[in-house]
């Protein structure tokens, strides 16, 4: 690094250069700092280089923090796959029946949009809900259990991949939107329903066949993990008119891989 020659000045030796940089980084011993201080007094070239490098590092240190895009955190969280929660915490979660019958559950789900939330939050202490818990929850979560196809059919998506196949239908009745899910997979599968910004709140899941392994609502997305023959209904409720025509975005995963993305029109016309 002899570019100082370009300026017509004699190059500063490597030892002095190391002292200058070490001083800038606060890494010099007192002896080394004394040595540099002497050089700064006796050598104009060292003094000049010290000033220049100090300016460069100050400019670097003063570069402002750049604001990350607002969607980034939510987008990351939505895509991250974690292992299904084990049954290890079951004993600590206590009886499900008691709290299932309270309004806490629905109140909790109503907070889903925009707030990072998992079903483990509810009045259970700090332990996450387990796969077995979720299975027990299914069928009892929704107060307004939809046990059959109700409402006007708005849209549907047919899946036919090697790992996951079936049908999802979106229906509407009043303020209630229901996703009737009928899927078949050999291995673990997951349906992610993104409803953030649609003016909807999560209203519950009703199991009709096979347990849903886990249900979580995170940052405006419902994650439903299951396997085998699956039939369940996801309910969403209109709470505002915001973006009421924006389609619901669905992502289907099988064996941890995204196999299909789809949009379902919320508006009939």
């Amino acid at each position, binding site marked *: 690094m002899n570019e100082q020659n370009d300026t017509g000045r004699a190059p500063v030796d490597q030892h002095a250069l190391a002292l200058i940089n070490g001083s800038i980084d606060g890494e010099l011993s007192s002896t080394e700092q004394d040595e540099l201080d002497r050089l700064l007094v006796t050598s104009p070239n060292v003094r000049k280089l010290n000033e220049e490098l100090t300016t460069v590092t100050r*400019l*670097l240190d003063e570069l402002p923090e*750049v604001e*990350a895009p607002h969607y980034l955190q939510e987008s990351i*969280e939505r895509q*991250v796959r*974690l292992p299904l929660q084990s049954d290890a915490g079951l004993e600590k979660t206590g009886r499900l029946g008691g709290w299932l019958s309270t309004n806490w559950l629905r109140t909790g789900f109503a907070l889903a949009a925009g707030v990072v939330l998992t079903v483990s939050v509810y009045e259970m202490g700090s332990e996450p809900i387990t796969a077995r818990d979720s299975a027990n929850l299914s069928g009892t979560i929704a107060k307004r259990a939809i046990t059959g196809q109700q409402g006007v059919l708005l849209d549907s998506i047919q899946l036919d991949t090697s790992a996951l196949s079936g049908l999802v239908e979106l229906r509407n009745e009043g303020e209630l939107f229901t996703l009737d899910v009928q899927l078949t997979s050999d291995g673990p599968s997951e349906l992610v329903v993104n409803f953030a910004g649609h003016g909807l709140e999560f209203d519950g899941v009703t199991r009709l066949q096979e347990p849903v392994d886990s249900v979580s609502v995170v940052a405006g997305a419902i994650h439903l993990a299951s396997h085998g023959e699956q039939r369940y209904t996801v309910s969403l409720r209109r709470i505002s008119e915001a973006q009421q025509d924006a389609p619901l975005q669905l992502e289907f995963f099988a064996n941890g891989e995204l196999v299909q993305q789809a949009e379902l029109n919320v508006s009939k016309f």
Partner: protein
Amino acid sequence: MHKDKDAALVNDCKRGDRRAMTRLVSQYQRPVFNAAYRILGNTDDAADATQTVFLKVFEHLADYDQKFKFFSWVYRIAVNEALNQVKKRRSQESLDDGQASSWQGPAEALDSKRLCKRVQDALMLLNEDYRTVVVLKHISGCSYQQISEILQLPEKTVKSRLYSARQLLKKTLQDDESDQQGQ
């Protein structure tokens, strides 16, 4: 950068606790994004890199060796991902010659935004090895030892690269200023 706290959150994530994942993402999203931004020089690429970094982090959580600090591991993935994107971008398109925009006058006279752009432009002219150590030192605030751990390089090499990078930045900024004054 709290090792024990991070280790506990990592263990919770391994058990499938999404709240722990959210906390780790919250904690490291901004610094990772900023490091990526300074290496890549644009917001969209930095956001893509950051997203990929976290997907890789959680996908490979089982491989994480807890004898290392979690942040070092995350930064290592971040640096590698950013550098991969640099390579990918280079193979797709020639670098924008207009990156080093004209110097608008002496540093003292520049408004802060322009000055930042000049410094970022100068940073982008460094090769990736030099840029990475500068970013880890001055943007991420890592010590020589931490940079050494992240890049898996001897401290001596880290220092050497950092000192050389500063000299090159100094020269680039001085040349820009000279060019501007000559116009």
